[in-house]
């Protein structure tokens, strides 16, 4: 895999993909020159084949679920069924304009209405809005609803959101975007939230608490009902970060644990693709008291079975709209297909096999002498190992292991998160991997540790088999190079030719 030239550097003045333009049209006479562009926008000038070859080659410089095991903790990188994609791309769905009347959208809206209903049932909540376009936007919607709820009760003194110190960074960032102060709650040595600290923190300023359960530490928060009572008695609401819903799907419901509002990362638990960073979808579910505040639009069904958009006219206290139309509609269709293929029994099978794979992998790694961080706890769908000891004794860091795993054909687990555990890897195998794949990963971990003991310098140089070696990130941030400009030619044509000749 060579170092590919940028698409811009492969062009030649005037070269075009001739099939891709509607013709040679005259300049418009109704638009005065002052409104018109004078210089060309600097897009590539290449042929259609050059485009296809370039982006096919670039794709081959990626890891992906379709090509590699991806045990990335907290991210739930499981197989994305191809049926979800091809069915969401059917022409009737794909070509429908967002402003088309609802009578030209009953098929699409039926899928959304049923998805709302299935998600409400599997989370144990009263209503679902599908509009948030990612987990972080779902969080925003949820916390904004908590704020709207307190305001509607003239309870303006509630200015604080409690967040455990192990939480995802989106939690505190969201609370601030919604105008709250963040108060961190410590975790005890077993990985549970420190109950004493929680009791001391709650009070008349408490708007709510944001929790992930199982937590980002890969363990189930055992005293969740007690925590819900403490927060509710203080007048606050409970927000459930659904990042780890995969671990408990069909087994236990956030609504039954006492949560008032949740978001679900459909790109995790409901297996819509991560797409190299998105799009996701962050559907939210709410209990009865937050129903009036849900973001819009929502799909409603009238008595005749016809679907319609629920709007501000029906829900005047809504927190409003978070996207121009209906969120990431096509992602919702993919999640719907996945949910229908799973059905009732399949939902709990997800949690069972995800948990089985995680506990198996954790046991095997412990047997091989790796340090499991919460050794007395059951793993949920993910678990933490720490390289504190290997770092001290041999200089082998979590980063070294992560980078070397790439050479062995495994995507690195999440490294250095959660922040509380030194030299950690957060490992989530998901339910769609086979035992053979997990055993192969264990063998690679053992081999890498041995390499580090034998020759630490060699390990520090990893990866070796990727298109590039470790990158100079300090330089990337200091000498910002964020866009190619006409006239740049760092990668010259000659060097490309030489590389290809090799």
């Amino acid at each position, binding site marked *: 895999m060579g*170092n590919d030239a*940028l698409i*811009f550097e492969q062009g030649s003045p005037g070269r075009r*993909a001739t099939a891709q333009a509607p013709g040679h049209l005259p300049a418009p006479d*109704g*638009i005065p020159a002052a409104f*018109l*562009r004078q210089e*060309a*926008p*600097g*897009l590539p000038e290449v042929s259609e084949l050059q*485009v*296809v070859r370039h982006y*096919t080659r*670039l*794709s081959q*410089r*990626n890891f992906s679920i379709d090509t*590699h095991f991806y045990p990335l903790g907290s991210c739930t*990188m499981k197989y*994305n069924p191809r*049926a979800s994609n091809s069915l969401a791309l*059917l022409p009737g769905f*794909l*070509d*429908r*304009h967002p*402003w088309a009347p609802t009578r*030209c959208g*009953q*098929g699409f809206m039926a899928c959304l209405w049923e998805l709302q209903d299935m998600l409400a*049932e599997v989370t144990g909540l009263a209503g679902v809005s599908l509009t948030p376009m990612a987990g*972080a936007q779902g969080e925003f919607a949820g916390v904004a609803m908590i*704020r709207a709820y307190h305001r509607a009760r003239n309870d303006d003194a509630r200015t604080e959101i409690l967040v455990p110190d192990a939480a995802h*960074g*989106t939690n505190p960032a969201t609370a601030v*975007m919604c105008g709250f102060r963040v108060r961190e709650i410590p975790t005890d040595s077993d990985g549970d939230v420190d109950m004493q600290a929680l009791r001391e923190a709650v009070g008349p300023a408490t708007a709510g608490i944001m929790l992930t359960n199982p937590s980002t530490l890969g363990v189930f928060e055992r005293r969740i*009902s007690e925590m819900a009572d403490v927060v509710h008695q203080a007048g606050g609401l409970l927000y459930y970060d659904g990042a780890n819903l995969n671990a408990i799907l069909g087994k236990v419901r956030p609504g*039954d644990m006492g949560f008032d509002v949740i978001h679900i990362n459909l790109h995790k638990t409901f297996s819509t693709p991560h*797409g190299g*960073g*998105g*799009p996701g979808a962050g559907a939210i579910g709410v209990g009865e008291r937050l129903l009036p505040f849900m973001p819009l639009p929502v799909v409603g069904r009238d008595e005749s079975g016809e679907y319609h958009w629920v709007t501000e006219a029906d829900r005047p206290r809504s*927190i409003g*709209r*978070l*996207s*121009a*139309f209906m*969120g990431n509609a096509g992602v919702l269709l993919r999640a719907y297909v996945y949910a229908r*293929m799973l059905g009732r029994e399949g*939902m709990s099978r997800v949690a069972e096999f995800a948990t089985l794979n995680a*506990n198996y992998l954790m046991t095997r790694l412990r047997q091989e002498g790796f340090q499991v961080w919460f050794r007395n706890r059951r793993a949920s769908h993910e678990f933490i190992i720490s390289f504190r000891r290997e770092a001290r004794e041999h200089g082998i860091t979590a980063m070294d292991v992560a980078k070397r795993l790439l050479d062995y054909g495994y995507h690195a687990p999440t490294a250095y998160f959660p922040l509380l555990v030194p030299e950690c890897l957060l490992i989530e195998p998901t339910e769609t991997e086979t035992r053979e794949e997990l055993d192969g990963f264990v063998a690679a971990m053992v081999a890498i540790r041995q390499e580090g003991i034998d020759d630490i310098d060699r390990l520090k140089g990893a990866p070796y088999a990727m*298109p590039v070696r470790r*990158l100079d990130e300090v330089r990337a*941030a200091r000498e*910002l190079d*964020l*866009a190619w400009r006409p006239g740049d030619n760092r990668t010259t044509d000659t060097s490309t030719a030489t590389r290809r000749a090799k």
Partner: protein
Amino acid sequence: MLDTIGVADINALFDEIPDALRGASLDRLPDGLPEQAISRLMRERAAADETGLCFLGAGAYRHHIPAAVWELTTRGEYYSAYTPYQAEASQGTLQLLYEYQSMMAGLTAMEVSNASLYDGASALAEAVLMAVRANRKARERRVLLADTLHPVYRQVVEAIVANQGIELEAIPAAEADGALDADSADGFGDVAAVVVQQPNFFGRLESVDALTDLAHAAGALLIAVVNPVSLALLKPPGMWGARGADIACGEGQPLGIPLSSGGPYFGFLCTRKAHVRQVPGRIIGRTVDLEGRSGYTLTLQAREQHIRRSKATSNICTNQGLMVTAATIHMAMLGGEGLRQVALACHHNTARLTAALTELPGVETVHEGPFFHERVIRMPGPAGPILDRLADRGLLGGYDLGGHSPQHRDQVLVCATEVITAEDIRHYAATLGAVLEELHHGQ
């Protein structure tokens, strides 16, 4: 596997969950379906949603998408990859995103671009928050939104900045003109940012040079909301007025993204290098590896939530990576001249469409002055019933402006992109003629 773990059955793995919480019956969930059964169901539903000829725009536009765009985009290596945090194993996505940033910088004539936001409306909300952070000289947290801005964009901005103590005010537009009056505006007062959309919601072109200079004279940052296809033809935000716009953002859908009932699309955001540390979302930079080869990585991550937590520039994490993959391939495929031809075709087709429709008695254009690829048409009566009857005949005739303001209930926003043919336009005119005739005779 259970033996290795040392448990008797799979339920034992859930023994840390209190019994009282377990055992919900999930009665409302249906049985699982095999792929062939869900395929049948989805085909039936998709077929029921098929619409014919479409003259709707208002923020989402039907364009031709080259076949190669989605064939490449749905390759598993793009489709099923994660966020490129492990740079060495993600050079494909990272280089593509760097190329995307370069293309957007070129198209907008701005210095830097991020790697995407959710959609155009939420990108504008992020731009407003960013401008208020970046404009340290402004005394007031006041932001002016043009009255000619897409009304849903205004709603989304209101919802997202609601709890930040930012005051949103309107810049009024002349009703007859459908655009802002830069000449009669006597300065914007003390304000942090001014938002102008080009082309505006009604398809009209705003006097962006004068408005940009007015904003700068008031000490405000100018936020440009633009259609990326139009930028191949129209003056890019970086060239507006004496100093250019400060932030350019908008909806990326016209660049190779299917309509798909409103999403997933992507938002873009470009700005000056001086403001790069206030930018929300991911940014890719070019650097070198241990051997001096060039490579690509996420950079300036200290702005982001996973590092900065409560002090991040935004809570955004997941973005719209796959949509940007399609847009990048789409832009490479069309090139600057191809995109300009698309923009020209849209403009000419909309001009032809409005000429054909306004030949009908009682149908007229509402605004004069230059437009891009949408125009407002006045019907001889309320638009709702007319559009309904057109839809009965398999034709989506445009966007009913009465939905946002009752006094405009006889007005329709129409759009004819490059995919519309002369025959399509004749068909619309003939069908509208027949519908108006029917209504005139009270049928």
